[in-house]
């Protein structure tokens, strides 16, 4: 029944889109049938396929850097009052700052190469990783830590056996939000310097038909869904007993 409703939701959406597309014309809104044809064409173009794959590399590298920096930082902020007091004002400032606004000065500082895209990815995703980990670290149950201490566990042992398992769902949620922002910001960065996916989108925008543009949006959507689903699978495989926490902080 639920599956039926879901499928009917998608079906109604596609039918409405098809009708709107047919009546508005491909120049304004290509109908899904055209988009599917365009997707098939896109899949056969070796050049476009390579561009799309290459665009993912800076997202992955930037995301890895964000996790490597953000997770320890968030944990430290959550467990140390001093670190929290020192860093929190900056975190709140950076998380509300739009990366788009920093792009012009980044271009002057690091140029428009591969590392530019990585920098944009890191600067847009790291804050979410930090703040989500922080939420988890603040909420670690005092009693659990006390039990560890009462049994004379070393700091390393407490970290490994108590804090890490308690943090895990938050690390995961942080990674997920970070990944979403990493993919968003790759597209943002590449739209500024017109390479990779951004370049493809820009080119497709020049076409008379919007079919190619919409096909690219579908590809990006697929990448985003696959990435976040994949991350969920990895987490489930690493720690099947954990439930994911709510991603809103």
């Amino acid at each position, binding site marked *: 029944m639920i599956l039926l409703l879901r499928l009917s*939701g998608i079906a109604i959406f596609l039918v409405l889109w098809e009708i709107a597309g047919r009546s508005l014309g491909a120049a304004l809104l290509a109908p899904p049938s055209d988009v599917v044809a365009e997707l098939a064409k896109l899949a056969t173009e070796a050049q476009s396929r390579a561009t799309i794959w290459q665009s993912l590399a800076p997202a992955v590298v930037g995301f890895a850097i964000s996790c490597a920096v953000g997770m320890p930082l968030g944990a430290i902020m959550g467990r140390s009052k001093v670190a929290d007091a*020192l860093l929190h004002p900056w975190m709140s400032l950076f998380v509300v700052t739009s990366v*788009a606004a920093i792009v012009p000065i980044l271009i002057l500082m690091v140029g428009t190469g591969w590392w530019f895209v990585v920098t944009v990815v890191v600067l847009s995703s790291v804050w979410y990783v930090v703040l989500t980990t922080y939420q988890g670290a603040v909420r670690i149950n005092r009693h659990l830590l006390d039990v560890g201490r009462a049994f004379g566990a070393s700091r390393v042992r407490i970290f490994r056996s108590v804090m890490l398992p308690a943090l895990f769902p938050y690390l995961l949620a942080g990674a997920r939000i970070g990944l979403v922002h990493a993919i968003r910001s790759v597209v*943002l960065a590449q739209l500024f310097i017109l390479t990779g996916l951004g370049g493809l*989108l820009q080119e497709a925008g020049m076409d008379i038909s919007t079919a190619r543009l919409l096909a690219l949006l579908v590809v*990006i959507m697929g990448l985003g869904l696959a990435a976040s689903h994949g991350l969920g699978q990895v987490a489930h495989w690493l720690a099947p007993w954990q439930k994911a926490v709510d991603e809103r902080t």
Partner: protein
Amino acid sequence: MARHRLLPYLSVVAGLAVWEAVGRFTPPIIFSPFSATAWQLLHTAALPGAIAQSLGTLATGFLLSAIVAVPLGFAMGRVWWVREMFHPILTGLYAIPPVAFIPFLIVWFGLFVESRIAIVVIMCFFEMLTIASAGAATIDRRLLDVARSFSAPRHRTITAVLIPASMPFLFTALRVGLVRAVAGVITGELLLSPANLGKILVDSAARFNTAGILGIVATVALLGLFVQQGLLWLERHILRWERP
């Protein structure tokens, strides 16, 4: 305790000092010290006008988005078949980065203010929708049961129970949405035809005027912080009963 209360301010001052020091030791073409940035900002005549224009775009886009996102989110949270029908499509659309819509928006709305409003709408729509629907889904059943056992009429249940119970998450939704909307404004002003704050930014970048660039970045950052703190303040004043 007093020490920890003072530390954030100290940290901000120290951060500005580091900015100043780094700015002095790097060539002005790459980075500018804090003092030069503040000076430049005070002498940008177009700034107040640009901020006002940007705020206009922000308000229009944000309101348009909220008018659709909040009721739809509410319906998705309270009515199960609405949720099941909309959920797959909205998850898919949410996975598309809002900026990726820009070439499409140009086709539909052109390069100017209509497109900028559209990007703001898209930027904050899904955040508000998810928070509103998750919040509406977790409204305490017992509150509704109380209303039912006193056989409250439907409109009474809505005004006396549902609306007050929804206020906290509605505020969260609006706050998160508004911060995203600020990001949307500056993104639109940079990636479409440069305008307002975005235009000052692009012009400064073209002249390698890093003080000008940093000034606008600081303005945008403060704007985001300001709307967030403003809504938090409003939330604390309106939702007095939520405070312990």
